[in-house]
């Protein structure tokens, strides 16, 4: 269920790496645990964050969740359509529901991330 080409964090974010840029979103599992997303706060282009630092938040009717960087980097693009259509995050978390694109600061950080299979195992163990 989780796409093969992506890497996953234990904080339930995914990153799709293409050269030195990465596209970041939250996982199917994360959006299911949250419920219907009603509000999203994202950083501005040019903001820099270290891995595991909060770069924004997602809210459902019931809960607030912070978003954590899967890798260190600088924000180069923000999904501008998702703020007006937060439900996209539930409908298509690995596609139209992407959140930010970053310029990856330290490619070696991928070693701390999980493959699709390892993330599947991680969330089944959690449940």
């Amino acid at each position, binding site marked *: 269920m989780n796409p093969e080409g992506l890497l996953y964090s*234990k*904080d*339930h*974010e995914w990153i799709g790496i293409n050269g030195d840029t990465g596209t970041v979103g*939250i996982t199917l*599992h*994360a959006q299911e*645990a*949250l*419920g*219907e997303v*009603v*509000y999203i*706060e994202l950083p501005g282009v040019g903001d820099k964050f270290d891995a595991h630092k909060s770069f924004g*938040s*997602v*809210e*459902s*009717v*019931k*809960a*607030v*969740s*912070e*978003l*954590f960087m899967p890798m260190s980097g600088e924000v180069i693009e923000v999904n501008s359509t998702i703020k007006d259509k937060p439900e996209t995050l539930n409908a298509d978390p690995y596609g139209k529901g992407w959140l930010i694109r970053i310029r990856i600061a330290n490619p070696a950080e991928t070693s701390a991330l999980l493959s699709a299979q390892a993330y599947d195992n991680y969330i089944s163990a*959690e*449940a």
Partner: protein
Amino acid sequence: MSARSASRGCARIRRLVLRVTDLRKTALFETHRSLKARMVPFGGWNMPVEYSGIIQEHTAVRTSVGLFDVSHMGEFIVSGPEALNLIQFVTCNDASRLVDGQAQYSALTTEEGTVVDDLLVYRESANRYMLVVNAANIESDLEWIQSHNTFIARIENISSATGLLAIQGPLALDTLRVIADISLNSIAPFHFARSYVSGVDTMISRTGYTGEDGFELYFAAANSVQLWNSIMSAGKRHGLLPAGLGARNTLRLEAGLLLHGNDIDRTTTLLEAGLGWIVKPGKGHFVGSESLAREKAEGPKRKLVGLEMLGPEIAREHYPVVVDEQEVGHVTSGSPSITLKKNIGLAYLPVDLAAVGETCEVLIRKRACKAQIVSTPFYKRSRE
């Protein structure tokens, strides 16, 4: 990503998906599972927070009908010749005004006039009452009442043996009518009657926690699955949806109904909470009557007010409220209002800052977000 449950503090998602083995379950636990409900811990119970989604369930209750399993709530029977005297002593409202078949919103009060719990008092007969209390407080309420029982009234905790379903919404009556052996129109708001629903001996109460018309059904817990299934079938043609605690919370907040543990507790007085209308010092001495009479004369120092956020941010419980860069209070409940499409909340503010129309700021992730004080309830149903 980490998640903060709006109801209970800060937790990572991995803890939201809790190991729930030591939580209590209602008789409908397997039913909820088969309906694919998302289950969460609530007041020591493993309860459904949503089935099809909070927004859909909320809307069903506002426009048609929703069905809630609230069997986790507690029920005590207080009986004997001294039953009324005990109830009058531990609660703030005047239960002597009740007639058989009538219910009353009331509270258990401390000597300081703060809230041990809010509850419903049902008068079955002059010598027999039922108290309905919040799930998280069953044990502490029972202990509290027993410790004040110098009257030697009989107190029986029937919580585990009692099922409770709430059918709420404009089509609640039409749903139940088909399966109830009694004319439901004969039961006025805040009244109840004993009858059969789908063959199950039931106490049918015209009460609820949503701001809509509706009924709460009390019955032997062993009949839970049968009754649930009958109501689900009867409601099918009306678009009935099973609804969880998520929708229950957004519905009650819109209707300005308070939640014990959030909006009221042993640190807030009834008058601060705007519940002066259930405080009846004229009925005679009760626990907290002196404090409440004094506070009523002097006026409370702070007040629970309704907030409407002026921007897109959502206020949540515990967020500080700021006026002129001074922290002056905190949010006790906050959520998107699904009916009004605004973000609303409740907060305690000093009385001089609590006037409707005044503005304040709610600190949300270190940002001051503008809010306006509005009157409650936020939502009031139209009655023909």
